[in-house]
């Protein structure tokens, strides 16, 4: 952002009329009536249907691909393979705010030398019907040399493990290896002296935890429609968290100038980080480029599981030392995260977040980025943090039990607060972790009694939150209504939040503002709707655009009244004289000013182009009560409360929605969800019948407590709330099961067979 901009903090200064209110969702009616257009809903005349042939092997060299029979099939219009995508240099280059290795990306969207996981794309067909496209896939002949594969992260680090990329040399170790391996990177964060810290401890606990890869579980599959013109330009409609990043990736992979590709985001049926990358889009464009006909592609659920980007599975060792009076003296962790078939897991943020909730003097965290024969991982809300903080929070909980201290008290003794030196670098500014913990203590849930076989667990979580590049355009229409154009896909109610902030600034009814999500050719660059940035960054840009529109209107009115612009103020939706000294004028409302616009200088608008800085970190906690059936191992969730610092809840309903959604995803991750592979390295549960996400009938109402400790860097105090809710629940669930059973499980998911096995082993 322009940091000279005076972003006056408004939240504490006056009564807010729209910010913090549960206004009507602008896109609500269309979504509940089925009118809203999602990724698979877009159609064009003459449209072809694209399908992808996928690898049946976890690891194999591609000897040959023969597409001649498929191409000869009546109705088939194009076939693409690795030969249709130019190879790219191996280097990490910036794409928006992300570092991307296009050599890996071009191999992920279409296998080249080898297939690296079950479901890896090998060829694609465009045909006049889906049936013909499927028939054509069966006619493509691929000769493979099957290679040994490795699925588990620890196995993949072994010296004799099958190696995915012979030229992958481990970064961050000294001396640098001379031979390729599956270990892409070692990273380390250090603070103080952990050996000295452990020497001061009265109790030291060290445990190792395993988590499995899980999918974001968005209900809407990946889908797109690409239309390439003979002119060399193209249109792409797709379900994405960031149309500008899709444009960047696809234009690079297709060798196009960025301006020649227009990407229009559809409504999105869930993303959670999984729709921040491209899979189908460049393939559909390549097929369309060959035929100059629109090509539509939609993944099946099986493809979503096998061929998109789940999150890492991991092996995590945590060691914490503590005094009898509850002071943590030292903490260390070693994180081994699966990256999937290409480097780039979320182990780095996992390392940075692991102990971030605590004010510690001695910390050492080591992380390993490890390749396995699985799909390349993608982000899943607060990428990396749920795994590391799960392990840490389980150890903290057990240590509290060992020293006979309440788990909240222990966390309060060690809680990070303003001025805390984090292990990952900076000292924290104002944060609300202590307030979150105190809100737990004050809650009814915390004091409620438990019955037999029931237990209560608590976990906490930290996420940085981010800002980033954002454009907003606001037009004052002839009748005094406003059109608010943003470039951030609405993944969690952002239209309503933007309207609340714009209405607050302009002093007009929120219903007079119509929010529109722009395509890439209609508005300047916007980073992804990700990283809990949209309400923060897009909100800042919206506020700035509104203030510019107001300044524009004040100038018009000043000229009409023939007084200096400084003598015109904006209040309650109208321009008014600043004082009686400015003259006697009746207020001019926004519709009145809009009506006169042609005569006072033409259209009125406000634009903002910023790179938002100063995101406020988020802290949260989950508290859950469970009942364990000791005969079946089934865990029933009885009561669940999410407590989190939002900074300022611009629209409380959508803040609560983020909290509740995160809690449900935590419950699924903790209790049931996992990628299950056979000995052949193929996924065995690539459907929602066998990969079990929680259903409404599995859940109690998720209660929420919104804590508000304002972020001083946002005009209304926003922190961003989308990431943190996925973090605390894994440990909260584990700690609750431990409380109910007296058993400490160290592996996710804690599915009924595993819980039952643990109970039986303990009783034996």
């Amino acid at each position, binding site marked *: 952002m322009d940091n000279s901009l005076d972003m006056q903090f408004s939240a504490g200064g006056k009564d807010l009329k729209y910010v913090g209110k549960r206004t009507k969702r602008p896109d609500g009616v269309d979504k509940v009536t089925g009118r809203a257009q999602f990724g698979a809903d877009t159609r064009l005349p003459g449209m072809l249907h694209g399908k992808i042939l996928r690898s049946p092997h976890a690891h194999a060299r591609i000897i040959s691909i023969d597409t001649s029979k498929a191409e000869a099939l009546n109705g088939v219009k194009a076939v693409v393979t690795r030969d249709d995508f130019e190879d790219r240099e191996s280097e990490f*280059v910036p794409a928006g*705010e992300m570092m991307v290795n296009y050599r890996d990306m071009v191999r992920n969207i279409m296998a080249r030398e080898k297939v690296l996981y079950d479901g890896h794309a090998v060829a694609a067909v465009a045909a006049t019907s889906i049936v013909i496209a499927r028939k054509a896939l069966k006619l493509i002949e691929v000769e493979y040399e099957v290679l040994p594969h490795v699925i588990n992260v620890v196995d993949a680090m072994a010296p004799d493990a099958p190696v995915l990329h012979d030229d992958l040399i481990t970064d*961050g170790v000294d001396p640098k290896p001379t031979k390729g391996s599956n270990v892409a990177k070692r990273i380390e*964060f250090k603070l103080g002296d952990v050996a000295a810290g452990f020497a001061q401890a009265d109790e030291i606990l060290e445990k190792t935890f395993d988590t499995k890869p899980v999918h974001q579980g968005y209900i809407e599959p990946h889908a797109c429609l690409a239309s390439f013109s003979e002119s060399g330009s193209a249109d792409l409609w797709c379900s994405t968290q960031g149309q500008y990043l899709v444009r960047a990736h696809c234009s690079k992979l297709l060798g196009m100038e960025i301006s020649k590709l227009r990407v229009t985001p559809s409504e999105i049926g869930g993303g959670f980080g999984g729709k921040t990358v491209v899979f189908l889009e460049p393939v559909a464009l390549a097929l369309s480029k060959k035929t100059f006909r629109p090509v539509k592609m939609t993944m099946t659920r099986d493809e979503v599981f096998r061929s998109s980007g789940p999150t890492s599975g991991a092996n995590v060792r945590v060691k914490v030392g503590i005094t009898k009076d509850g002071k943590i003296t030292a903490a260390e962790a070693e994180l081994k995260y699966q990256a999937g078939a290409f480097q780039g897991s979320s182990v780095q943020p996992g390392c*940075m977040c692991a102990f971030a909730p605590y004010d510690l003097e001695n910390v050492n965290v080591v992380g390993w980025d490890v390749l396995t024969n699985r799909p390349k991982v*993608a982000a899943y809300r607060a990428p990396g943090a749920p795994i590391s903080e799960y392990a840490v929070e389980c150890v903290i909980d057990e240590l509290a039990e060992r020293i006979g201290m309440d788990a909240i008290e222990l966390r309060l003794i060690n809680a990070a607060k303003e001025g805390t030196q984090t292990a990952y670098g900076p*000292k924290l500014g104002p944060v609300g972790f202590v307030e979150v913990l105190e809100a737990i203590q004050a809650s009814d849930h915390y004091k409620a009694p438990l019955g037999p076989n029931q237990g209560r667990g608590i976990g906490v979580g930290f996420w940085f939150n981010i800002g980033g590049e954002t454009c907003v355009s606001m037009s004052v229409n002839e009748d005094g209504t406003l059109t608010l154009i943003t470039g951030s896909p609405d993944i969690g109610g952002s239209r309503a939040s933007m309207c609340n902030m714009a209405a607050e600034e302009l002093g007009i009814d929120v219903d007079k503002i119509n929010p529109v999500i722009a395509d890439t050719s209609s508005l300047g660059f916007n980073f992804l709707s990700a990283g809990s940035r949209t309400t923060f960054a897009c909100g800042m840009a919206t506020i700035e655009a509104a203030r510019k529109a107001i300044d524009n209107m004040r100038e018009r009115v000043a000229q009409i009244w023939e007084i200096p612009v400084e003598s015109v103020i904006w209040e309650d939706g109208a321009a008014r004289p600043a004082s009686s000294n400015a003259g006697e004028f009746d207020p001019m409302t926004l519709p009145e000013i809009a009506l006169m616009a042609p005569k006072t200088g033409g259209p009125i608008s406000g634009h903002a182009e910023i*790179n938002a800085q100063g995101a406020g970190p988020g802290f949260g906690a989950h508290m859950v009560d469970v009942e364990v059936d000791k005969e079946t191992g089934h865990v029933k969730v009885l009561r669940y409360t999410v407590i989190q610092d939002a900074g300022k809840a611009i629209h409380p309903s959508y803040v609560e929605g983020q909290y509740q959604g995160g809690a449900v995803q935590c419950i699924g991750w903790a209790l049931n969800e996992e990628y299950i592979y056979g000995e052949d390295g193929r996924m065995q549960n690539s459907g929602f019948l066998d990969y079990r996400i929680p259903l409404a009938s599995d859940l109690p109402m998720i209660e929420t407590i919104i804590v508000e400790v304002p972020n001083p860097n946002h005009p209304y105090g926003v922190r961003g709330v989308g*990431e943190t809710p996925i973090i605390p629940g894994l440990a909260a669930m584990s700690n609750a099961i431990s409380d109910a059973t007296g058993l400490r499980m160290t592996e996710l998911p804690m599915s009924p067979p595993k819980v039952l096995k643990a109970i039986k082993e303990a009783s034996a």
Partner: protein
Amino acid sequence: MVKVILTGSVSQMAGGLTEMDVEATTVRQLFRHLRERFPNIESHMEDDIAVAINGTVYQDAWFEKISEDSEVHLIPRVGGG
């Protein structure tokens, strides 16, 4: 001179250095100094780094001011889902 702390992979990029004194009044000058001191560092090094000034994290903010008493940390850039 501003004292700059390097953590995690940023420290690794700088050959294990964890602290350095830099003559810089802006983030851009800080990065220029880093490139001059470590000529072998990756060309897109700064795209992978965030700068925390007095606890506030900045990403892509060349012209952000740094003063002598600022607490400056170079940390890995953060994204999200």
